[in-house]
Every structure is written in C-alpha cells, then in structure tokens.
C-alpha cells in the first residue's frame, strides 16, 4: 500500500514538473515568467529554511546572511572574474554552505545557544556580513551591476533561463527536503527538535546532524541567491540583507507548517501571491503588514501551520487504501543480540565503574563510586533523594563527563564518549519522568531508538518498533502522539524505547512510580522476562518491595558513596542502610 501511494506521489510530482518545464515554450509573457520565478525563489528559500529551523528546531533569523553570501559570490565571480554565470552558482552554494557549517561548528557545541539565542546569533551574523560586504570592494557601498553578464538562453531568452534555474532549484530543494524528511536523518532532526538531550542519549549524532542540516539549508539559500543576483541584475547591500529576506521564509514555513517537507512550499505560494499581487508603493507596504498579521494569527490559532490540517482533512476524505498502512505488529519472538549472549557469559562483569567522581559547582555528587555490574543480572540501585543515583546513570550514559575515575563497558572505556556513542555500544536508559518526543508518533519514538540504538534502516526500524510496541502492550497506540497517552502508557513507552535499542545494559529509572498494583506486577513480570532473554538491568526504584522481589543484587548509594552491595536480604538488613533509611534522632 505504501509503495502504491509513493508511486502516485512520484507520478504526480513528475507531471507537475513537466507542466512547469513546458511553460516557457508557450508564448507566456515575461511578466508571468518572472512572477512564477519569484514563487519558485520563495519556495526554495522557505524550504531551505525549514530543513534547519523547522525540522531541527534551530530558528535561524539569519537566512539573509547565507542568501546574501550567494548573491555576492555570484555577482563578484561573474563581473570581476569573468566566470561563466552558470559556473558561479555551485560556488555560491558552496561558499554559503561553508559559512553555515562554520557558524554551526562554533555554535552547535554550546548547549545554551538554542532557542532565542541561536536566533540572535544568526540575525547578528546577517548584519556583520552586510557591514563587511558594504565596506569592502565586494560591494564598495554602491552596488554591483550584472547587466553585462552573459547569460545562456534557455527557451530563447534570458527570462527563460532565469525561470528554468528557479524551477530547477525549487524542485531540488523540495527533493532534498523530502529526502531528509523521510530519512533517518529527518527522524533524528525531529527528535533534536523535541528534546535534544534525549535524542543524543538514544544514539542520535546530534552535532553531526545539525551541521548537516545547516549546511544543506545555507547551501540552497546561497545557490538560490546566485540566481537571484542575475534576476535583479543590480545588487545592493540594502536590498540583499533586507529584513524581508529574513522574515518571509519564516512566515511561509510557519504558515504552511514547518514540520512537513511540503508545508513551506504551500506557504510560499500563498504568501508570494498575496505580496506580489500588489504593485509597488504604499499598498505594497500594507500588504507586507497583512502578511505579518497573518503570521500572528497562524502562531496563535494554528501553531502547527496549515499543512497538517490539510493532511488531516485529506486523510478524512481520501479512500482507505491511500491511508498509510497501519503497521500491525506481527507476533515476532523478541530477538536479543545473539552474538554477545553466550550463556556462560552470565556473571562476568559487563560494566565496571572505578572510583567515579562527578562534581557540580563545588558539590560532589559522586565521591568515588566503584561498582561492577554483572552480565545478565538485575541490579537494584537505591538510596535516598540526592544520593547520586541519577548522576550515576547520567555519567554511565555519557550525558555528563566524569571528573575522575573510569567507566568501562565490555572492556572499553566509555567515560569520555559522547552519549550517542555510548548508546550505540549497547547501553540504554529510560527516564523517571517520561521524556518522549512529543511530536513524533509513539511508533516513531520507538523506531528512532531502534534505528539509532540498534542500527536499523528506516523500514526495518519501524518494523522492529511495531514489535516492541506489541511486547509492551502499546500496539494500539502506535499512531498516537505521546501527549495522548496516560502516565502508565508513557512509562511503558519509555521501556519500549529502551528495549528497541536492544541494549546489553538497560537502565530503568523509577519505571514503577505512579503505577497501581496490577500495573506494577505486569511491569515486574516484563522485567524478569527481559532479564531472562539476556539483557542486564540496572533499575533505580523507591518501591522497596519491588526492589527486594526483583533484584539479584542491590547497591545502596548515600551522599555520593556506595555504602552497601549484596543480595537484597543482606543489603537491606545492613545497619548502615537502616540508619540511612530510617534516620537517627539528632535533637537533644
């Protein structure tokens, strides 16, 4: 079914493309060619903006910087160096992409430069580039004329050439956006958008993906800028680095829906028609205000944009066969990684923490913890609030770097690895307060973990995800969004995401809290089953009867130190542990 729908889409796209290719061959007036070119131009700009900002959630207010780099690269190469115009376009794209990548390389490693700070950096970048261009020979403050630049003539005129280039780039950017949208990278970018830290812990190479997104985004904007320079034939700093160039892609994407590859194009068509339908002059200014007003209304009333509503409406009327297939979980046998699971490995230390120290602003959260976790066991990790349990999990998964000591997993030191590498080695975790990717379906939440944690491709990852949803009893919720689930279901979604990575060590952070007795019993059964299939489990829990019932061994942390380790019986009757839990009287 999926294939059939895909084929229909491709055929439709080809027909549309063919029609647009044929247009200049008819005797349509240059005015309409130019108008269509502008639509193509904005489709490319908005789509390229969305690849970074809509997908990954890094809002760029500096698209004009990349666009302008392209404009002036093409203008300079064509006029001062006499390059053939078509050859300047790849250069324009590459230089803009290099600028974007450079900026990303500086900015993306700093966690705090998200949200409005990223927006501010990018808007500042625009003005810095503008000041440099205007104060150097690149522009010289007087603008660059491209009138004398030789143009190849498609369909008998330069207008036909500009039109064709616009069409090619619009088609190209849509294809790139579609490809990213459908790929593993797209899934990763959407996860980054929702919760970057969790994405990293689930195995998404966030830094690399963000760089990829900004490179594509800025590269397209640069190349498109190159074409634009010949379209206007006289480029100035004032009109190139203009605020509208920053604003319109944002507006178009938000309007059409910035989480869908086709959304920005839809927005671009609507907004361009609204804007250029007016001649220049006072009315044009008002039209711009009208577009801004439209943006406000969309932000307030349709925060997801128009496209998702369109899709929902279309699905409602479309024949059943066009609806994407409901992946029904096949009754698969859970498949652990057999290669690592020889039965006689049981009991061998798989995860070794040696003297691990972690300090936060002068406070030692872990004061030298030494702990071995054995293959195939369930290790209960307990201790009062603030004893360092969460910190220990966070350093093992690579979310925090350790300050001293070492952590070894299956013989390999992992204390300094970034979280996504640790995840790929076979360590997965769940979160006490579930942190699903709220804009991905339940199925895609799990597919992401399967894809990045267990190395599956797109289709296989979804199939495995469906399987793990079946295993955790969430099959019927596969196409819901996480906010629609209740707490119990979200806890099990955490579990399914952990399992989908098929880890050797699974760390469960308070999966039981908030569940009722029946649900707790279900969860305990499930955890025993997971262990019996070969996965080592570390679980943090406050519900002591569950800890005692389930654990092979119990480790007790207090104040950043391991104070007891052993079988549940011996640990919990340890006097030190009893003192920690029941306290001693101090008042006299």
């Amino acid at each position, binding site marked *: 079914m999926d294939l059939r729908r895909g084929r229909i889409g491709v055929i439709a796209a080809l027909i549309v493309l063919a029609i647009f290719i044929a247009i200049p061959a008819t005797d349509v007036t240059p005015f309409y060619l130019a108008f269509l070119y502008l639509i193509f131009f904005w489709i490319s700009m908005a789509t390229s903006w969305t690849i970074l900002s809509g997908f990954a959630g890094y809002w760029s207010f500096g698209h004009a910087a990349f666009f302008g780099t392209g404009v002036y690269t093409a203008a300079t190469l064509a006029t001062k160096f006499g390059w053939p115009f078509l050859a300047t376009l790849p250069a324009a794209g590459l230089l803009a992409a290099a600028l974007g990548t450079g900026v990303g390389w500086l900015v993306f490693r700093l966690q705090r430069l998200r949200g*409005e700070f990223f927006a*501010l*950096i990018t808007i*500042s970048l625009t003005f810095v580039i503008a000041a440099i261009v*205007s*104060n150097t020979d690149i522009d010289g403050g007087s603008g660059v004329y491209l009138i004398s630049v030789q143009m190849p003539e498609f369909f008998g005129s330069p207008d036909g050439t500009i039109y064709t280039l616009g069409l090619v780039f619009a088609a190209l950017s849509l294809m790139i956006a579609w490809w990213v949208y459908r790929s593993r990278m797209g899934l990763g970018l959407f996860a980054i958008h929702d919760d970057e830290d969790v994405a990293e812990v689930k195995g998404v190479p966030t830094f690399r993906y963000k760089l990829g997104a900004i490179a594509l985004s800025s590269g397209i904007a640069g190349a498109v800028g190159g074409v634009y320079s010949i379209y206007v034939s006289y480029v100035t700093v004032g009109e190139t680095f203009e605020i509208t160039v920053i604003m319109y892609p*944002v507006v178009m994407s938000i309007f059409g829906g910035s989480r869908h590859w086709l959304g920005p194009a839809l927005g671009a068509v609507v907004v361009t028609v609204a804007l250029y339908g007016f001649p220049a002059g006072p009315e044009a200014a008002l039209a711009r205000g009208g577009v801004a007003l439209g943006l406000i209304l969309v*932000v307030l009333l349709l925060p997801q944009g128009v496209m998702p509503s369109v899709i929902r409406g279309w699905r409602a009327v479309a024949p059943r066969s066009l609806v994407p297939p409901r992946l029904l979980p096949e009754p698969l046998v859970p498949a652990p990684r057999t290669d690592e699971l020889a039965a006689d490995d049981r009991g061998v230390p798989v995860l070794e923490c040696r003297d691990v120290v972690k300090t936060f602003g002068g406070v030692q959260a872990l004061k030298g913890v030494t702990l071995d976790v054995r293959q195939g066991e369930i290790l209960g990790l307990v201790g009062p609030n603030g004893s360092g349990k969460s910190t220990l999990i966070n350093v093992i998964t690579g979310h925090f770097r350790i300050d001293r000591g070492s952590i070894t997993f299956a013989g390999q030191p992992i204390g300094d690895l970034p979280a996504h590498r640790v995840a790929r080695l076979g360590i997965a975790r769940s979160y006490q307060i579930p942190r699903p990717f709220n804009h991905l379906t339940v199925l895609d939440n799990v597919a992401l973990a399967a894809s990045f944690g267990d190395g599956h491709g797109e289709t296989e990852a979804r199939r495995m995800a469906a399987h793990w949803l079946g295993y955790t009893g969430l099959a019927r919720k596969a196409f819901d969004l996480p906010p629609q689930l209740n707490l119990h279901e979200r806890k099990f979604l955490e579990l399914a995401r952990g399992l989908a990575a098929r880890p050797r060590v699974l760390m469960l952070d308070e999966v039981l809290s908030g569940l009722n007795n029946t649900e707790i019993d279900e969860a305990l059964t499930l955890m025993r089953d997971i262990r019996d299939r070969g996965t080592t489990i570390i679980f943090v829990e406050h519900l002591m009867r569950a800890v005692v019932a389930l654990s092979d061994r119990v480790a007790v942390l207090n104040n950043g130190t391991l104070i007891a380790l052993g079988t549940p019986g011996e640990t919990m009757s340890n006097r030190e542990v009893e003192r920690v839990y029941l306290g001693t009287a101090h008042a006299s």
Partner: protein
Amino acid sequence: MPSVALLDQALITGILTGGLYGLLALGLSLSWGLLRLVNIGHFAIALLGAYLTWWMGTSFGIAPWWTGIVIVLAFFVYGIALHWVFMRFGITEMQSMLITFALAVIVESILQFLWTADFRRYDTAWGTQSWVIGALYVPKLSFIAFVVAALLAGGTWAWLRYTYVGRALRACAEDAPIAAAFGINHRGLSFLLSGLCAAYAGVAGVFIALIATLAPSQIWAWVGIVFAVVIIGRLGNPLGALMGGILIGLCEALTMAIVNPSWAPLVSFSVLIALLLFKPRWI
C-alpha cells in the same frame, strides 16, 4: 590618527548615544529577564512613538512633552493588552519573538504607508542647541535624554530592589510557584511590568523624535545594537542596560572617529556574537 579633541568629542557622543540605547534597552531587558518574553516589537513601538511626536509637533504644533504624556499612557495600556494576548494563548518565549517580530513589521508597514519611506526630521528652535566646553560640544537634547535614561534606569533599579512589588517581581522571575505561596499574584504584577516596558518605549520614542532622523526601517537598525546592550547588561538589570548602552555607544563612536562610520554596525553585532559565544561570567 584623529586629534585628541576629536576623540574627546567621540567619547561624549558615545556616552550620550549610549544613554539613548540604554533607554531603548530598558523595557526589553525587563520583559525578557523578568517575564521571559522577547519583545522585538519594542523597537517598533518606540519608533511609532517617535513618529507620533514628530507628526503632532510638525502638523499640529503640539509640544513634544504633551504628546509624550499621552504616548506613555497609551503605550502602558498597549503593553497590558499585549500581555493579555500572550497569557490568553499561553505563548512561549520563541512564539513571543515571532509575534512581536510580526508586530514590528506591521508597525513598519503602517509607518511607511502613512508617512512614506522618506527620512523625516523634527526641527525645532532648541533642538540643535549645545553647550560649548572648550573645543567640545554637548548637545542639550542628547544630554537631557541621557539624564532621563539614567533616572529611569536608576529608579527602576531601586524600585526592583527596595520595594515589595519590585522584589516580588524578581522573586516571580526566579520561582513563580513559590512566590505565589507567599501571596504574590504573578499575573497582576506581570501586567504591570509589561505596561511599564511599553511605556519606557514611549519615553524613548519621544527623544528619538527630537534627536534622530526618522525612517521606518530604523526599527531594524536597533535590533542588534539593543540586544547586544541587553545581554551585556544582564537580562532584567536596568542599571546594566544603561551601562551596556554606554559601552556600545562608546565602541561605535570610537569606531566612527577612528575608522569609518559605516563600520559602526559591525562593532555592536560582533560584540553581541562574541558575548553569546563566550558568555563571560559577568553577564
């Protein structure tokens, strides 16, 4: 190398311009720091205030201080209304940036529609007077603007520091639920603050009308400068906003005097980028 007198003059110009930047930054800094709303529209309504002052003055002969009083009151109400919309729709920080950005575009387009994109100047008999100290000129209006900026920044700082309402606002910014547990009504206070921020934009607008040349696109020239000022001065810190304004003003004036006026924007934006990237301890 420029002469010593030129440099001294640049210092004076820089400090005085910095006062105006500080005045513009004040409202932005407070709403971002204490309400977690990023108001790009702040610049737009400041310019709207400037245009109204100019228009009332040149077309109807109404003195700027009378217009100013009306503008400040009207903007206070506008600030409350804007905040009501934000509360009503549960706007996030990012969405507030988008919406106020759109508001700025709307204001710009209205200004352009009503008064075209041409430069406008409010010429008055006293507008160009200066005190002359040796070889140096101190423009009277810029000086008054600086004094007003200093008074507002200092007053707001003291208000936040020494009054119950001011402290309550700071407490809400840090931990609103706990502040509520001690009887602080966050909603009510945030309306007050939002109104106040808009009113500050009105004050800035009146001075801009008197000192600067007006053009609708001026809105965007301020974005980088004033955001740099706000971040240098620390979000939510009114005295910091003034200090940041003076710092940026000085940087710009010195660049203009030593290098070339057209490089001036580069300075403020580069400072902003550097600050965001390296985030020193003092911001």
